[in-house]
């Protein structure tokens, strides 16, 4: 998988060298082209992880972006309008994530999404305490995170 | 023209300090490095002085950029003789420190800082660039902060706070002055500044800038009403440190005042009057303080203030004779003040205190050493023909020449007070019988049990400086030639400017 990633990078650089313009956009284009070519050529191979994961990463990124914008708008609306519709609270969230990197990424994305913020991780690394701005129902909130961010993240990382 | 000899006195101390840092935690090695290095530095200083005295002003343009663009180092007779005198005091204190400074202090960087301080002093003397001078001053004050607090107990720390606050304030004034100076001239090179300030029509701005320098350097050289940090702190650090402070530190402020006010701002009536008024009050303030103090170092601190007034007065009068007198006094003072503080340290070693009420019997216990100290103490007073006597002739003459009778009177009062307090000191510390020490653990003779070698390490520097003092006194002719030469250089800055900027 690392091999494929390096290969893809090499292709991207080759592209840059060929076209002779060291712009970022050009590099990205080279990378995308390289990915496509590798995907085409590797269809018969066993190991598809690299080709599965890259779209998943992009998917996760898009999902995150969607959440970000949605929540931002929600919060921004609440901020600029005179009345508050908030129901803030701190929720204990039992994680599936176990390794440090998983916990870190999970908490980062949760925190980055407006309306939710990690306050702390328990000592035994099983539970996240999340400050939530619009807490309608605790279970529903936990489920939303579980199906949303955590599942997608763990899919990429595991 | 370009000659690296100038920078060697600076570089030597820099390398000594760095080398000592590499020997962190090894006290003996640092001691040896320091003493050997100080000897080398002295040789360098002598070489520099000889070269300047024989061959005229030396300059070095650091980084090889022609004059107003790089940083110039200039060694004229003034700066090279300051370097020379500082190297004497430096060597003496370095030797004294071998036994005189507690081992713990040496283990925590005493020697590197000490040499950084000497480096800073030499740098300040030799710099020909006003901002570079600021940097040297900062090197000096941070080094002095550290020396002042090194291993400090309560009183020392308290003194340091005041010392620090007022010195940083001084730096702020100095820096502000530099800012304004750059704002009106666009240059930092002192020779260039001399020309540009001379050509400036706005005398008001020049005076205002000058005031910032008066205050900045005035604080550092402990001029009334800016002197407060000095008596608050000089009685607290270890004696070796106090010796450097008393002998060299305030003098670098004086040096800067002389340099700036003879090269860049030529004193007009306003500045001249101001300096003279300050001088009179400085002398009197020092006098009043010294008369009432019972602790040797507190007393000496006020004497420093008092004598600073003499020099500032000389600068204020700004005639060749006056400058000669002030410079002569400066030279004498650098050596003697270092020595009296070393002596104070030795006294404390012998009795564990500097409180004159608790002291006594030194003449009976150490007759020869006492006589040695007497010579130094009476040199400080200026008993003729010892060193402090000669400059007063010039100062009196200058005072009479331009009718500054009040200043002359102040100098007489100051001299009289010095005589009185030193005689009192002698009577109560050396003549008086040792009062009962009781079983105070502080009041013990730590000198007697020392080995002969260690004793000699404490006494040699005092003898060394005493010999120099005697030379200044008895060889006044030679010193007179040097200071007259400097005074002429100060009155006619053309050679300096030409040496830096080239002739055109």
């Amino acid at each position, binding site marked *: 998988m690392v091999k494929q990633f390096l290969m893809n990078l090499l292709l991207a650089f080759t592209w840059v060298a060929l076209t002779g313009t060291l712009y970022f956009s050009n590099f990205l284009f080279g990378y995308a082209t390289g990915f496509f070519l590798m995907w085409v050529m590797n269809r018969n191979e066993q190991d598809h992880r690299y080709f599965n994961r890259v779209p998943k990463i992009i998917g996760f990124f898009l999902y995150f972006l969607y959440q970000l914008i949605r929540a931002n708008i929600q919060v921004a609306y609440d901020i600029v309008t005179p009345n508050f519709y908030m129901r803030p609270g701190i929720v204990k969230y039992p994680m599936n994530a176990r390794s440090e990197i998983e916990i870190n990424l999970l908490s980062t994305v949760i925190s980055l999404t407006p309306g939710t913020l990690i306050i702390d991780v328990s000592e035994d690394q099983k539970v996240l305490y999340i400050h939530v701005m619009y807490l309608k129902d605790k279970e529903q909130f936990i489920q939303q995170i579980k199906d949303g961010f955590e599942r997608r993240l763990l899919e990429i990382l595991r | 023209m370009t000659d690296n000899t100038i920078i060697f006195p600076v570089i030597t101390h820099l390398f000594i300090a760095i080398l000592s840092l590499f020997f962190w935690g090894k006290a003996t090695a640092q001691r040896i490095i320091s003493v050997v290095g100080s000897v080398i530095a002295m040789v360098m200083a002598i070489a520099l002085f000889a070269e300047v005295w024989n061959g005229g002003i030396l300059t070095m343009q650091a980084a090889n950029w022609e004059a107003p663009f790089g940083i110039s180092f200039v060694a004229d007779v003034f700066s090279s003789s300051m370097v020379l005198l500082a190297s004497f005091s430096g060597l003496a204190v370095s030797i004294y420190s071998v036994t005189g400074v507690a081992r713990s202090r040496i283990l925590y960087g005493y020697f590197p800082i000490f040499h950084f301080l000497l480096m800073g002093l030499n740098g300040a003397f030799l710099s020909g660039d006003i901002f570079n001078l600021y940097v040297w001053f900062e090197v000096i004050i941070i080094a002095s902060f550290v020396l002042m607090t090194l291993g400090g107990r309560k009183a020392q720390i308290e003194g340091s706070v005041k010392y620090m606050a007022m010195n940083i304030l001084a730096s702020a004034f100095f820096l502000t002055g530099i800012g304004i100076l750059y704002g009106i001239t666009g240059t930092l090179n002192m020779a260039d500044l001399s020309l540009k300030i001379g050509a400036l029509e706005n005398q008001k701005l020049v005076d205002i800038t000058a005031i910032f320098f008066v205050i900045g350097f005035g604080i550092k050289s402990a001029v009334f009403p800016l002197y407060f940090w000095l008596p*608050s702190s000089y009685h607290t650090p270890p004696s070796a440190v106090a010796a450097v402070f008393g002998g060299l530190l305030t003098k670098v402020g004086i040096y800067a005042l002389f340099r700036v006010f003879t090269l860049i701002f030529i004193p007009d009536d306003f500045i001249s009057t101001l300096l003279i008024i300050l001088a009179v009050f400085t002398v009197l303030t020092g006098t009043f303080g010294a008369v009432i103090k019972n602790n040797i170092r507190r007393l000496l601190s006020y004497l420093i203030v008092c004598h600073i007034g003499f020099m500032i007065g000389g600068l204020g009068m700004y005639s060749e004779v006056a400058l000669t007198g002030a410079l002569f006094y400066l030279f004498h003072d650098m050596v003697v003040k270092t020595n009296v503080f070393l002596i104070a340290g030795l006294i404390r070693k012998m009795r564990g205190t500097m409180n004159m009420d608790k002291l006594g019997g030194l003449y009976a216990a150490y007759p020869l050493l006492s006589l040695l100290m007497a010579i130094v103490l009476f040199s400080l007073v200026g008993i003729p023909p010892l060193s402090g006597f000669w400059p007063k002739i010039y100062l009196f003459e200058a005072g009479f020449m331009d009718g500054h009778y009040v200043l002359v009177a102040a100098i007489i009062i100051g001299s009289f007070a010095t005589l009185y307090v030193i005689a009192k000191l002698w009577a109560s510390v050396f003549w008086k019988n040792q009062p009962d020490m009781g079983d105070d653990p502080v009041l013990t003779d730590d000198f007697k049990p020392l080995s002969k070698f260690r004793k000699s390490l404490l006494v040699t520097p005092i003898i060394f400086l005493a010999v120099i003092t005697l030379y200044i006194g008895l060889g006044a002719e030679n010193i007179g030639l040097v200071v007259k030469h400097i005074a002429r250089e100060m009155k006619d800055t053309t050679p300096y400017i030409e040496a830096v900027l080239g002739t055109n």
Partner: protein
Amino acid sequence: MLIAVLAGLIVSILYIPFGKYLKGRLAVLVALLPIGLFAYFASFIPMISNGGNADYQYPWVPSLGINLDFRLDGLSLLFSLLITGIGSLVYLYASSYLKAHPYLDRFYGYLSLFMAAMLGVVLSDNVLLLFIFWELTSISSFFLIGFNNDSAESRKSSLVALAVTGGGGFLLMAGFVLMGHLSGSYSIQEMVQSNEFLKNNSLYPLMLLLVFAGAFTKSAQFPFHFWLPGAMKAPTPISAYLHSATMVKAGVYLLARIYPVLGGTDYWTYPLIIVGGITMLYSAFHSIFRTDLKGILAYSTISALGVLVFLIGIGTAQSLLAASVFILVHALYKAALFLITGVIDHETGTRDVTRLAGLHKVLPPLAVGGFLAALSSAGLPFTFGFIGKDLIYEATLNTDSVMPTILTTLAVITNIFLLYAGLLAGLKPFTGRLPTAYAGIHLPHWLMWIPPMLLSLLGIAFGAFPALADTALLNPAAAAMINKPIDSPLKIWHGFNLVLLLSTVTLILGAVLYLIRKPSAGGLARIERFDYLSPRHLLTKIVYYSKKFSARYTQTLHSGFLRVYIFRIVTFAVLLLGFRLLTGGPVWFTPNHLSPISVYEVVVGGILIVTIYLAVTTLSRLTAVVATSVIGYCICLLFVFYSAPDLAMTQFTIDTLTVVLFVLVLFRLPPFLNFTNRLARMRDWLLASSFGAIVSLIAVQVLNQPFDHAVSRFYGENAYLLAKGKNVVNVILVDFRGVDTMFEIVVLAIAAIGVFSLLKLKLKASEKE
């Protein structure tokens, strides 16, 4: 000559290493020094008496006009012989007097030093050289008076003596410098040439004032006389030598020496007559109340010095001759009396004249000596004292400037008292009935009684044969003073005239006084009731109050409160800058090319100001720190807007590190308390804002000036081409002005070491320094 002058100095230095061998009878040998010198100076008598002078010049500090110029003329020869002659006797005497003293070597060391200094004073032909030796006499006498340094009184007396003579010394020095400055030379001979110029100078009175101050303090003139009785704490040989025969006469010598330069005017005459007159009368009167032999002698010495000053003040040829005679007369009998007193003290253990009597039985040779000295001091015919007294009266009677009657009356009264004092010291202890306590006394070693005998006999010898001293010594001395030869030989017999009558009256009244008045403790107590009026007492008061003032001044100024100091410093700055800013030209703003203002600058500026307000007023330390860092960040933004990226980067990082540092340090500290009251805060605000306003105004003034970009243009042009860098600021830092950077990192290094040691170093209890 140089060796002669410095011999004492050299010998005194030799005592330091070799003094310890100086024990017992060997000490006599040290007298070889003064004896040899005496012989040396005596060899000049023929030449001097023929009106010659001897000049010796050795270069020393030519640039200052100070050279080792010595001149031997009548006056200096007289003094040189006195110094070495009496010196010889004192040396001999002391070798026995202080035989068992553990610090005999020191004693001779100081004494030799003193002798050298004294010779220097009288032989110098250069005022500054004279002054150098003058001060050396003060210092060596300081050591001699304080010789018994374990006695508190002795220390105090030496301190007082040094303070008075030393203080006068500085004034004298100023006077000399003034004279030298005006006449263009420090050589006395050359000053004599320009004496008219000096006397007509507007600074002439000042000159005299300064010189007189030196002379009066040294010669114990009223009101500075009090140090001399105190100086009697010294061992008796020293009193004899310094405080009767030699040092105290240095002031008189000085007046005599500069008489040809400055003397002869009203400014000269009146002060000297008045001061000398008061001194002689006052001390003579005081001397009769003393009961301590040395006290009597001390006061009579002061009186004699007054007489001398008085005579020099009169300033006629006669009076100057009288002065030179009286110098010799007084030296001889007073030294003798002192040495005798020393023996009495040594043998009986007391100097109380009320308890001493009949000693002629046990100390017969001394009784003779004392008697002869008393006679000389009384001025009986055929003593040298008689000639002296005659000359004095003659001088006072024949003065042309001032009232002869008054002056003569003064002189007569003084002499009556002096006579009484002389008899009291020389006669009283030896006459009457010997108290049984002193019956067992033996005559001391001959070294102790021969010298006073010799002096007394000399007094008689000169009295009988005045010519012995006259042409050889006294005439040339007086001639040196008035700068021309004198031709009036000394005579024993002047015939029956007013002078003789006065002498007789003096004698009779003095004798009567001696017979009817007995010294008593009660008398002393009576006179001491008026002590609060005495100059000594007044001076003590002055010293007390000036110390009190000094303490108050120092305490007030140096109160220990940092903020007070800073307040003063800033006030000083504000006053100076404000004064200079508002005088000489208007303060206006002439904008030549202002950069445009934009929103973000205003926002940043506004934030900056509010944050500063917050930092200043908050009661939470942390808020203050946060605010401080915001201030730093805002300034960074300004740096960004005004094209200083390097600066902004550095300030950002450093500001943050400072905050981190603060934070690490602060967490134990309690919140701020508002210590100061409203009024103090208002006052501080006023001061601070005036300072801020002044700085702003100055900035505006500077902005009005045109600016010269030459240096920065040079940097811009050469940064890449010559220094191979494109970030000019960095090129400046590592190349153009790299030296700054080099030593700025040294500052950092020192700070780090300082922090390290400040927190880690803990001195052991045994480590005091």
